[in-house]
């Protein structure tokens, strides 16, 4: 029997490596930790709503893992740690709703590659995290199941679209999470919830089993409380996958190695277009502080102009809406979906009627996508957006000839009140101004918690050239080491 004393002492606020050590030394069992996590979830979920569903079998799975450890059987590197998965990533035997009425009861018949990789390392999928419907949004307010709330101030949005992922990691409802990042959807909640979030190089992580929104742009990415934890998860999920031919062979890269290399002698470009006009004063001063911190650590910081970045929002929303309008054409509610009477329709009207259950943001994006692709407008919007995408890519390539990394605040403003901007979609789109270039060009980017203002988190974003994740993580680690941030108040 577990002593009461020990039960209460055991903290959920430990890093992945501490967790593994404790499991290894027999100081802690997976069952204890999962039980404590579920207790925590029960306590905070009514205020936070990070999850759409919780894994009912988590305790049973933890017991099986403890049994394996006891019997000295081969055990995966995750030792039964709880991980949450954004609900647009397929999990066998658990619902995958995409936070949409259209997939309310959908249970995927297979695991996404990232999920099967985690499971084969004995991770426990503790629950499916809330998101904006089909990952379209930057606040998690567009979930059919209701918004998630920011654990630092529950009146505020947690960012999005992987809001539930950010919240669950920040509020100790899991050790790490997987989100998806199409225009900043991992980095935005990471910044707003004070956790680390990585958007990897396009192709580094398999998208097999991720419900498609904009295939040419999106990537799955991890969220965790420290850079070391991100590196640990990345080691497991990165690499070539036969089910996704856009994946890249990354050899035997070990992202957890040499994290403390430092930034001495590195050149860091500060993106001029992302630190000035339109950026909140507190965010500006945190950015300045981050720059001087890097200089103190021995890096050289120089301003870099990326003038194509100012067109990135228009280009991104043109391209992603176009891809979305074709990707979401498959949802007809016939093979799976919610109950809808099959009787008595005029030819064609069933599909339009049933699809009116898509939420307003998804509908808006589909309208935009259909418009920019329609005849007469294609050259004006879609083709131009593709050219700007190329321009951004070539300007970034040029920049990386001069510097090793680029820096900008992740979000131009602090977390804001739920409902405050919901009627002004363009204003919400413009919040992605600092994150989108990574998606349009395919380069990796990371958001690191760096400062607080008025009790709300500020994240600093670093970009590196394609497949330079190792360098990116090393610099993020150096920055993280200088911070001393408060614990989440919930």
């Amino acid at each position: 029997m577990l002593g009461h004393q020990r039960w209460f002492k055991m903290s959920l606020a430990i890093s992945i490596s501490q967790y593994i050590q404790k499991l290894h030394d027999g100081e802690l069992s997976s069952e204890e930790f999962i039980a404590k996590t579920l207790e925590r979830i029960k306590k905070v979920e009514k205020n936070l709503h990070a999850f759409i569903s919780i894994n009912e079998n988590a305790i049973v799975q933890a017991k099986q893992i403890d049994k394996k450890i006891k019997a000295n059987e081969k055990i995966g590197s995750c030792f039964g740690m709880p991980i949450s998965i954004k609900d647009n990533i397929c999990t066998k035997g658990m619902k995958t709703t995409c936070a949409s009425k259209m997939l309310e009861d959908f249970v995927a018949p297979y695991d996404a590659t990232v999920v099967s990789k985690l499971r084969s390392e004995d991770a426990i999928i503790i629950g499916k995290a809330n998101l904006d419907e089909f990952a379209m949004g930057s606040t998690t307010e567009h979930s059919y199941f209701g918004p998630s709330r920011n654990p630092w101030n529950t009146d505020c949005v947690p960012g999005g679209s992987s809001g539930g992922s950010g919240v669950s990691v920040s509020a100790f409802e899991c050790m790490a999470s997987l989100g998806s990042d199409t225009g900043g959807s991992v980095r935005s909640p990471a910044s707003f919830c004070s956790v680390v979030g990585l958007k990897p190089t396009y192709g580094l992580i398999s998208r097999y089993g991720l419900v498609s929104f904009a295939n040419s742009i999106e990537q799955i990415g991890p969220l965790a409380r420290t850079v070391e934890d991100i590196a640990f998860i990345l080691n497991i999920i990165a690499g070539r996958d036969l089910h996704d031919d856009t994946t890249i062979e990354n050899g035997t890269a070990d992202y957890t190695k040499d994290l403390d290399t430092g930034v001495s002698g590195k050149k860091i470009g500060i993106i001029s277009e992302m630190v000035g006009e339109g950026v909140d004063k507190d965010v500006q001063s945190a950015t300045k502080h981050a720059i001087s911190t890097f200089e103190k650590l021995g890096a050289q910081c120089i301003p870099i102009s990326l003038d194509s970045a100012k067109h990135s929002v228009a280009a991104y929303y043109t391209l992603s809406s176009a891809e979305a309008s074709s990707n979401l054409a498959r949802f007809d509610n016939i093979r799976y979906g919610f109950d809808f009477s099959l009787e008595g329709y005029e030819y064609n009207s069933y599909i339009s009627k049933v699809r009116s259950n898509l939420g307003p943001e998804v509908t808006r994006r589909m309208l935009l996508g259909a418009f920019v692709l329609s005849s007469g407008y294609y050259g004006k919007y879609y083709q131009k957006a593709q050219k700007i995408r190329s321009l951004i890519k070539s300007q970034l390539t040029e920049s990386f000839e001069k510097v090793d990394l680029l820096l900008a605040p992740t979000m131009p403003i602090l977390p804001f009140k739920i409902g405050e901007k919901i009627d002004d979609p363009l204003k919400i789109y413009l919040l992605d101004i600092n994150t989108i270039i990574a998606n349009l060009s395919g380069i990796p980017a990371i958001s690191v918690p760096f400062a607080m203002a008025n009790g709300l988190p500020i994240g600093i974003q670093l970009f590196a050239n394609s497949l330079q994740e190792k360098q990116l993580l090393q610099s993020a680690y150096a920055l993280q080491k200088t911070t001393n941030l408060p614990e989440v108040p919930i």
Partner: protein
Amino acid sequence: MVDKKEIEHLSDLIKIEIKDPQKYILQVEQILNYFERLDKVEITAEDLLSQELTLDNLRDDKFVPYEDNLIEKLKKTRENFVRAPKMV
């Protein structure tokens, strides 16, 4: 200019019945106006790089049977059929 007729036309293209087209007119127009800036960007011939993608590491084109009986996971099935709505 986006008007009610345009929204209705688009709604037909995307196969989503829109009960209140008025709600979308202003927002879609505002966003499209913002997109207008794309057309104003001067792009020289040098910038017209096409997206290059070389795939030389494709898997073998081999039939791998899928063991799971997927049809059981679909709704409204009878034997091996999915029931579709009656459209007349």
